[in-house]
């Protein structure tokens, strides 16, 4: 019995160790897809609800949701890179990688997506890029 518990515990610990590189690789994939999308889209003057430059640790997942839904609303998923990016932003590994909230603090204090001021598309993508880079640098 003790041996079984020990083996299960070892497997659990190993799964935790392996998770970090997977999350990092997923976030790096998001960056690549974002780069391709920025290159493909013309220099658009489109204005979109954009989360702020400074996002609190416990509001990062809320900001991620805002980025994903705004992307869907304005660009859809018809394009090749739009579809890929949307799927990656919705992936479990991406969500886990950008979850910086270590405390039990409620996320109710985080601003809603539509309350964010509108910014140009270029600024929208730059802030999404910063959020993902912040996640990669922490893993």
């Amino acid at each position: 019995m003790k041996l079984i518990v020990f083996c299960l515990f070892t497997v659990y610990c190993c799964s935790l160790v392996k998770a970090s590189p997977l999350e990092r690789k997923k976030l790096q994939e998001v960056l690549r897809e974002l780069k391709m999308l920025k290159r493909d889209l013309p220099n658009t003057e489109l204005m979109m609800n954009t989360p702020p430059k400074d996002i609190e640790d416990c509001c990062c997942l809320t900001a991620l949701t805002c980025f994903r839904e705004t992307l869907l609303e304005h660009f859809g998923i018809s394009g090749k890179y739009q579809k890929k990016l949307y799927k990656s932003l919705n992936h479990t590994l991406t969500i886990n990688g950008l979850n910086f909230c270590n405390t039990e603090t409620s996320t109710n204090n985080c601003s809603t997506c539509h309350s964010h001021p509108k910014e140009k598309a270029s600024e929208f993508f730059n802030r999404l890029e910063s959020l993902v880079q912040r996640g990669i640098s922490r893993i």
Partner: protein
Amino acid sequence: MKPTRLLLLLCLIGPVFAIEAPDVDCLVINLKYVSCTWNKKETPKVNYTFYSSFFNKEKKSCPQYLTENNMNIGCIQPCESGDRFLTFNTMLVHGNDSFKETHGLKNRVKLNPPTNLTVLNGSDFNLWFYWNHTSPARLHCVESEVRFRTNNNKWEFSKVSAGIQKYCINSPSGSSRYELQVRNRIDEGCGSSDFWSDWSEPVFWGSNNSTDSDSVPGWMTFLYVVGAITLMLLVVMLLQRERLKIILIPAVPKPSPILHDIEDWFQLSRGLKENFKASYNEQVCPVREYNYISQSDSMNSTSSVSTDQTDCSVSIDVNDPEDLYVPLSSSSSQVPSEEVQQVSD
């Protein structure tokens, strides 16, 4: 009218006496502290008090000032590695004046140069270089650049991907001297920094004697000089001594249409010529030939056949008719080619 004029005068001269807003320039050093300076344009005329804060964090006064000529020109403010993604607010205060600025520090990072740069001769006969970085950045966030040179020649540069802290030089030359340095910065995936770190301390490998590929050792120069002098002496001797010249460079015979004595063609030396002539004398040994005598004539008498050789001692007795034939034989001694053969009837 007077207050209006006074007010106008104050508005005109006021800006002359107003303090110009200092320009604060901040840089994150090694992801451990922020270094801000405000003496970029000119040395400040007054001593400012510096305050700073990251987004949503407590405002702090400067724990350590940088000074020049007893004037505060900058501040060192400790920070955490992830703070660079947040807006950095600064405030300079002097009396009633305060100057606020906001800074984006994500890309304004300068790491310390790599440390512990070592070189190892691998089992694959390649040269391996290893180093470490001292910042709290994750390994996959740090990319490096290597430069190396051979025998103090031109530098060669090479990028090393993030997460790798080693470099290899294939099949190094044992007679060359290698020098290598490395520098690093934050990788693009983690918010790339605009500045490379300084170059690390160099590491060397190889022979010290071959520091300069163009220089020739002293003893080699001496040998070259001696060899050249010897060659010149030989040439001079060759020209001066005819005999030596003839031996070393014999003259090629010139063929002529007039036939001369063939011996002269070879132009043999007198000594060599005489060697071909026989130096011994030999007495001529005349030989007589005897004809066949019929048996009826010879039955009564025993004929003896003999050769009359003056110095020869050969005599032949013939008792048997078969012995009648006396072959013409020469003496055992050699005779000159111009022998006279005497045949008697």
